């Protein structure tokens, strides 16, 4: 089904044609094994909201708008995007990652922009039971850890035992080019005001807490809660 939407290939970059002024859901994954990640930037002619991070819907679809979004080298994002007519680039850093051709053609549907973005996008569905958590839960001191990954994750030899149902609060620092991740398990950001590219109160499964694009994490400790770690 998706392949049918590819209409042309230009300079070896597959160009996607979309209907102008209509909302689309753009599922995006960034994979940069050198660890850099970077900023995904859309053209100003497009209205873009990041509605989900690492597979989990944000609490509010219109809370994080573009055109630029910082992502780690292993992050995923779901964007709600609509563009005026024209041909636009999507960039990662200074490089063109993809091209969009938005045109006034075809039939319209209920996803066409009404001029009220919040109404168009609606509200996110309820989070799964495992992510319906209280960010203000009291965390025992014994469950608070500082995890400094200076020197790389392979050199880190710490271990943490977590019982099912426990809540932990960890301070992650210097995760470097290999963003911190637990595989399968999402983490709730509880740093007041968020940390780097990570928004307070939202879930991520991949977290970067160091330069070049999360500098504030050095001075603002990154806290997270773990739930259902089993």
């Amino acid at each position, binding site marked *: 089904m998706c392949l049918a939407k*590819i209409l042309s290939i230009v300079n070896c970059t597959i160009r996607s044609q979309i209907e102008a002024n209509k909302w689309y859901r753009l599922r*995006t994954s960034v*994979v*940069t094994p*050198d660890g850099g990640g970077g900023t995904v930037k859309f053209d100003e002619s497009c209205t873009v909201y990041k509605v989900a991070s690492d*597979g*989990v819907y944000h609490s509010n679809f219109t809370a994080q708008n573009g055109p630029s979004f910082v992502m780690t080298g292993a992050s995923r994002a779901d964007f709600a995007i609509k563009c005026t007519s024209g041909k636009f680039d999507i960039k990662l850093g200074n490089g063109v990652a*993809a091209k969009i051709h938005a045109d006034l053609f075809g039939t319209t549907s209920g996803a066409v922009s009404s001029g009220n973005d919040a109404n168009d996008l609606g509200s996110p*569905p309820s989070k799964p039971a495992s992510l319906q958590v209280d960010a203000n839960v009291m965390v025992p001191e014994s469950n608070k850890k500082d995890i400094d990954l200076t020197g790389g994750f392979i050199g880190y030899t710490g271990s943490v035992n977590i019982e099912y149902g426990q809540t932990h609060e960890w301070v992650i620092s210097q995760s470097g080019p290999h963003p911190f991740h637990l595989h399968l398990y999402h983490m709730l950001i509880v740093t007041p005001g968020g940390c780097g590219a990570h928004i307070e109160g939202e879930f991520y499964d991949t977290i970067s807490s160091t330069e070049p694009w999360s500098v504030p994490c050095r001075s603002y400790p990154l806290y997270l809660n773990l739930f259902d770690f089993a």
Partner: protein
Amino acid sequence: MDRFVEGGQCLDYMWDIAADHPAGTYWYHPHYHTLTNAQVSGGAFGMLIIDDNQNDVNDWGSVDNEKILQISNTGSLMGNGVTRGNEIM
């Protein structure tokens, strides 16, 4: 548990996905430590999507209005001059 596949060969994986598994945009990649970067740089990764219950999303988020973009710089890491374009599908 390790499973091995020779270069150029295929290996099937089968999982039972629980009916209540959270929807979302995920990715897969090999994770044999010390070889992960080389294998991912060689293209051993991809997007893994668990669809929403279609009753939970507005029209804009439905499968019919969905585009997929995998961004990577792995081509530049292969050291053989090969670059790999990113795609919206």
